[in-house]
């Protein structure tokens, strides 16, 4: 680099050449018209195709083609919640994905119709957004809501956007931003796939909603101690690392998220019957937290007291705590890793929620169950082959 550069840089200051003689104002007008009309035509064409096919069934249920349900729950749930008939919804993380809606219907009886709106790895805020779409339809009578402490963490309006922007436009009431769904490359790809299958007679049977995002079958092979042990070692390493990196846990933040996303819904919708439940992770999971992230462990106990305190005044709210049920948590063959239990446990929980067996009905009971869990964690002898 030397001083010549100054001259050369100056030379580049004028990006445009003087207007050529031939280019009249009319030429520019024609150019702008051509651009404008092309843009409008493309936009209108794509939006029309996407609106007519509507692959996420956001505007209506699919009628003239076999639906293709997306397994991207954050994208698919809004359409399900808007356009299906139901009176019960399930909210929560992967801990709720193995509830089978038709079985939930059978357990609760009285013509119950259940829609599962689980989102794996969700935050409370994401769960609330999905729940609110359903609530806006006015048909929700019952919400079954799995409360994972992990969902309370990370802020009261946490959206998981690690892999792309959250489709918030599907969840709000602004119809104008839905253009992001209509003018969307993924929607277009799906629409074209639907059309192609329709025209070539290669439509696949739709996944029944009963099984959409149910992972029991996919992981049948993994319900063996070997996998639980392997995963235990990974989880332990991760927990140790988190502890070394000084990861902290804030009870206040978790409470704030609860208040912002759960309590708020309960307050605004007194007409709904709520079944909150604490999922029974394996004892190994609790013990790892207890040993390596004690702050997080104790906060999980502490927040149950807070939640009971906040919700006890509502007669339409039921809280079920399965976390100290040794019959579940100590039998490692119920799990495919240290936290995910099998579909049989989901079925059991639904039956017990309907019966109220595990419902905590007083602060004393909350404290007693917490005490049991603490005792179990202290006394359990993990027998992990190294």
């Amino acid at each position: 680099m030397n001083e010549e550069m100054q001259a050369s840089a100056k030379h580049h200051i004028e990006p445009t050449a003087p207007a050529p003689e031939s280019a009249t104002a009319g030429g520019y007008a024609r150019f702008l018209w051509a651009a404008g009309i092309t843009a409008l035509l493309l936009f209108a064409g794509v939006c029309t195709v996407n609106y007519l096919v509507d692959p996420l069934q956001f505007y209506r249920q699919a009628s003239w083609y076999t639906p293709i349900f997306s397994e991207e729950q954050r994208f698919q749930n809004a359409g399900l919640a808007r356009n299906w008939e139901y009176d019960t919804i399930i909210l929560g993380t992967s801990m709720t994905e193995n509830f089978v809606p038709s079985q939930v219907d059978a357990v609760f009886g009285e013509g119950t119709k259940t829609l599962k709106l689980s989102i794996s790895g969700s935050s409370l805020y994401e769960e609330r957004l999905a729940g609110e779409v359903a609530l806006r339809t006015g048909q929700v009578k019952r919400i079954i809501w799995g409360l994972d402490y992990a969902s309370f963490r990370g802020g009261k309006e946490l959206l998981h956007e690690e892999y792309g922007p959250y489709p918030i436009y599907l969840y709000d009431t602004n119809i104008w931003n839905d253009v992001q769904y209509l003018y969307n490359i993924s929607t277009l790809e799906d629409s074209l796939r639907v059309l192609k299958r329709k025209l070539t007679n290669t439509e696949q049977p739709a996944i029944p909603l009963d099984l959409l995002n149910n992972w029991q079958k996919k992981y049948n092979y993994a319900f063996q101690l070997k996998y639980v042990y392997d995963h235990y070692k990974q989880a332990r390493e991760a927990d140790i690392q988190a502890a070394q990196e000084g990861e902290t846990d804030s009870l206040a933040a978790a409470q704030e998220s609860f208040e912002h996303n759960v309590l708020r819904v309960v307050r605004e919708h007194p007409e709904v019957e709520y079944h909150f439940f604490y999922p029974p992770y394996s004892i190994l999971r609790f013990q790892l937290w207890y040993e390596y992230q004690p702050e997080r462990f104790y906060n999980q106990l502490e927040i149950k007291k807070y939640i009971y305190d906040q919700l006890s005044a509502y007669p339409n709210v039921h809280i079920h705590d399965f976390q100290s049920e040794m019959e579940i948590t100590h039998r490692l063959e119920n799990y495919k890793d240290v936290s995910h239990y099998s579909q049989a446990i989901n079925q059991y929980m639904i039956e017990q929620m309907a019966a109220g067996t595990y419902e905590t009905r007083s602060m004393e009971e909350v404290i007693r169950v917490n005490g049991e869990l603490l005792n179990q964690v202290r006394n359990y002898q993990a027998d992990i082959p190294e």
Partner: protein
Amino acid sequence: MLFNSYVYILAFLPISLAVYWFLIRMSYVTAAKLWLTAASFFFYGWWDIRYVPILAVSILFNYAIGVWLAARAPSHEEASQDAKAHGQDHLGGANRRRGNRRSTERARRLMLVLGIAANVILLGYFKYMDFFIENINFLFHTGWDLLGIVLPIGISFYTFTQIAYLVDAYKGEVRENSLLNYALFVVFFPQLIAGPILHHREMMPQFADPGNYRVNSRNFALGLTVFAAGLVKKVVIADTLAPIASYGFDEATALTLVEAWITSLSYSFQLYFDFSGYTDMAIGAALLFNIKLPFNFDSPYKSLNIQVFWRRWHMTLGRFLMNYIYIPLGGNRRGQARTYLNLMVTFLIGGFWHGAGWTFIFWGFLHGAALVIHRIWKRIGIQMPKLVAWFLTFQFVNASWVFFRAQEWEDAIKVLRGMVNFESIGLGSAAWSSVALVAGAFVMAIAFRNTNEWQTRFRPRVYLGVAVAAGMMLALIRMNRISEFLYFNF
């Protein structure tokens, strides 16, 4: 807000344009400038409202210092009289005047130093504080907590712009008596967060020129075209390459020869299309306001030596570094050794400017060293065949980007090691489509005319209008896959 976002393209830009031209048409020129300034602050505050006051204080501060410096700058006549008086010492009056001038001169110098220092401290605090703390902790085993400072977006750019202004105000080369004009020059949103790094000399007159207060259909058509071209470069090309580079740099634990080359090349092209595309969007948007921003890229990967590369890559940064660091250090006027040292210092600073990390400093060092070697080579005077020269230059630039991109030293080493991993050559986990994409990007960067050349040949053909719209609509529909713009933390 990002240029490649719906809110910018469909709301912010059209509204700010429409109101601006409406006010101009009603002959409310000051109101139009106020509007544009306010819109730019809004644009800036969209990211984080807390950083608006920092920008505002920075502008007020630099404007005040600039006015003070310019008011006391020697006029040209005075300066030449002083020069004459120097030879005629018997003129007592001139002596006295020179005596006064000397004390003013000292005050002005002090003020300039203070002004620059304040800018550097502001930048240093926000951008480099945590980096320094980390290094002190490492060196002295101290346990100071990091402050977790979030970098106000664009601060590196508007700090440099304003330092240049102060220096030129000190030299008496610029004088701006309108705070509004000055503020607009600094915050004008097309260039605010990612450049081009403007020079007041090329901007202030444009805002003041009544000739620009008329909608110019050529600028409008051209601006739209350039904006669309930039959008396609960013959203369609760079964002398609990004995941390929990310995989190799951030996820893979070891790379085969082919994987490593795909990784490094895809990043080199990603960065080029990303940054030059973003610059095109800035240039295009500014043209809609009849403002011409300087070019920032000129097919850098076609360069035949590293010196030329720096005249074609991020040209406005190169210009700044040269005029405000290299030349003040003495440039090439103090002998060979000093020239080399100046080059090295300039590029170490340039590297550090790009980011608070040792990999950036090392990247700057590599380029400084390459420029020194180039100079020595030129002195020896051996001609190199063009193809060899291009190849060497491109290979050097490509390899140096590895340090620029890598988040950790280990990642850089991993990629470079892969690039010479002759034991494991195969495609690995890379897809043929990635190879094709990188090859396509290569051809586009090397064999085609760049957007600047298009601009000079621009004719408002109907088919071009159709193509511009199609490109824009293609980019818009792909926007739910966009990644963050890369140059933000610089």
